């Protein structure tokens, strides 16, 4: 009796384990991908977050020896470049999770995309990062690559409104909206102070009754002008937009 009981207990545990470790593989061509930011992509109706990495937010600036640069946008452009150069299908291995966003390990022709971003110093590890990601991060830090070349705020802290001193004066929106961040006056250049929200690049608009957010890498981005009177607004990151209930265009409401 005892052995039978033990057998059924082990069978039940095995069954739970199989459900826990079963993985879904999503395969797609790079043409189907829209890069949202340095650690998120959209494939058709699905938003995929690269597992184990956290890239600077789109409007985030990092400081290298007193010189600010758009590290968030750079990370997004790098991800777009990585994805765009693949002539073989990209494969993302996803673990089923009870979240509204897919977290996946994405491989391109055998290369780990998230690992490349960590190795280039354009993303940091997260609590659930595998060991080889942490090794790559240490190497990037030692080589002062990317964000490790100077001062930066961890993306998780940046989303909580922490900023580097003077970061607000370097508004990346100038780059996107055709304005110069400084005035060219006789005798020299002077910085114009930007508003606190100059770094909030994610645009939330209402389309067909749905609250949709767009990032600078979306084709429609330049033409969108959020109307605050209609409840449209800017967000300082795609995660913040999602937390406020906004979604990507064409996104499925729940991922199963």
């Amino acid at each position, binding site marked *: 009796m005892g052995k039978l009981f033990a057998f059924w207990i082990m069978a039940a545990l095995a069954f739970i384990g199989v459900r826990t470790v079963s993985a879904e593989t999503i395969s797609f061509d790079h043409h189907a991908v829209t890069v949202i930011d340095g650690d998120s992509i959209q494939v058709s109706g699905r938003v995929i977050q690269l597992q184990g990495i956290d890239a600077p937010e789109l409007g985030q600036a990092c400081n290298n020896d007193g010189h600010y640069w758009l590290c968030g946008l*750079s990370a997004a452009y790098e991800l777009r470049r990585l994805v765009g150069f693949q002539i073989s299908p990209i494969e993302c291995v996803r673990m089923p999770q009870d979240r509204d966003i897919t977290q996946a390990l994405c491989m391109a022709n055998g290369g780990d995309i998230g690992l490349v971003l960590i190795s280039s110093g354009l993303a940091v590890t997260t609590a659930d990062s595998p060991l080889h990601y942490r090794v790559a991060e240490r190497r990037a830090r030692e080589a002062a690559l990317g964000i490790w070349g100077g001062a930066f705020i961890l993306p998780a802290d940046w989303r909580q409104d922490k900023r580097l001193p003077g970061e607000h004066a370097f508004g990346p929106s100038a780059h996107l909206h055709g304005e110069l961040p400084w005035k060219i006056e006789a005798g020299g250049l002077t910085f114009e102070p930007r508003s606190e929200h100059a770094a909030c690049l994610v645009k939330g608009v209402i389309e067909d009754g749905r609250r949709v957010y767009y990032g600078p890498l979306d084709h429609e981005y330049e033409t969108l002008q959020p109307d605050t009177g209609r409840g449209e607004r800017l967000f300082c990151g795609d995660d913040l937009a999602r937390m406020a209930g906004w979604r990507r265009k064409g996104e499925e409401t729940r991922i199963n």
Partner: protein
Amino acid sequence: MLDLRPIFLTIGMLLTILAISMLIPAAVDFAVDNPDWRVFAKAAGITLFAGVAMALSCRTGRNSLSVRQAFALTAMLWIVLTLFASLPFLFCELGLSFTDAYFEAMSGITTTGSTVLTGLDGLPPGLLLWRGILQWLGGLGIVVMALSILPMLRVGGMQMFRVEAFETEGKMLPRAAQLSAGIVLILFFFTGMLILGLWLAGMTGLEAVVHALTTIATGGYSTSDGSIGHFDSALIEGIITVGMVVGGIPFLLFLKLVRGDGRSLLRDEQVQWYLGILASVTVAVTAWLWFSQGMTPLHAFRYASFNVVSIMTGTGYASADYGQWGVFPVGVMFFLMFVGGCYGSTACGIKVFRFQVLYASARSQIRHLVQPHGVFIPTFNRRPISDEVVTSVLSYFFIFGAVFAVLSLGLNLQGLDIVTAMSGAGTAMANVGPGLGPIIGPAGNFQSLPDAAKWLLVAGMLIGRLEVFTIFVLFSRRFWRG
């Protein structure tokens, strides 16, 4: 003591040309209401002022350069021109640091093509055009220099290419001016054909112009982060492949072709070797992609041909991340980047003729070992190669290798992995553009490198472009004592 006045006079005149060329992107930005036109206008004003001031204050009445002055001019010209060419990058809306601005300008003017810029697809048209113009001017400059100045300096075997009509040392500048006119016309012709072809193939006007400029210059700057892969068009890749191949052929042969001498182009051994290497490596990589990577033969040929030609000519465009194709193509691309194009073209690298000289010399040596009493003279283009040329080429290979090793170790010392360090040093010295590995490979970018690494790469680009010896001569005390 070296008289620097003719040097600064020449630099001043060329700065004036650079300033005028800045007005082109200024006009384009003004036409599309982009405020960056003010950036180019200011940069042009500063450059013009500096150029005119230099030229006026250094007038000597003499129209000739000594060999020592030519050495000094060659190095100082590229350093000073790059400084002023970096002004638009420094002043523009991107807020680049001086290191990044100078890196981008040096990469442009040496036709390397490594970039620290991201988000190219959204950059103002003037800035994209300026990158193209810089590479075109750099390509023109290197061809003129290769034909008129470097042979007189007897650098790395280039004395083989002394044009007999211009034997007099002091006639370097008039010869340069004479050749420039013909070379410019030929460059304009090829650039025009490329613009038309690319535009008909589906590029916008700006994309066609920029890519035509950077293709014939074998520079590789693109209007998109995705390089040529962004367009995903076999037709565009085919047109650009032809353009890159043309860019790697000696322009003097095109001049001769225009004057009715087509046989020189067909019978030139350097061109035969150049095309032969391109064809055989393309076949090898195509076969690898077909059998090992499972691509269809047509796809395999498309990607192999484009990327092989791009790397060997030093253009540096990418249509795919060949770092993911397996171990063989990565090794091939690494060694191919050093081979380069033909001498007297816009292409970079060690140059095909140097390999031919070593091959001919080694072949003679082997024959001599077999027949010790035989007389075997190495030849190039059916003319005997002198011992002086062989020694010069061997010395070049040694210095190139030594600098490559020092640069690689310098980059490695800063924490870069050995693949990034070696491919970075190689791509800079061979003026190719992309390195290998995830950081600076075809899908990567040089922005994330630390400033010290960028300055090492800047030095590598300059040393490689100026055929190594031209820079090191300046470090000799005897040179300055005369």
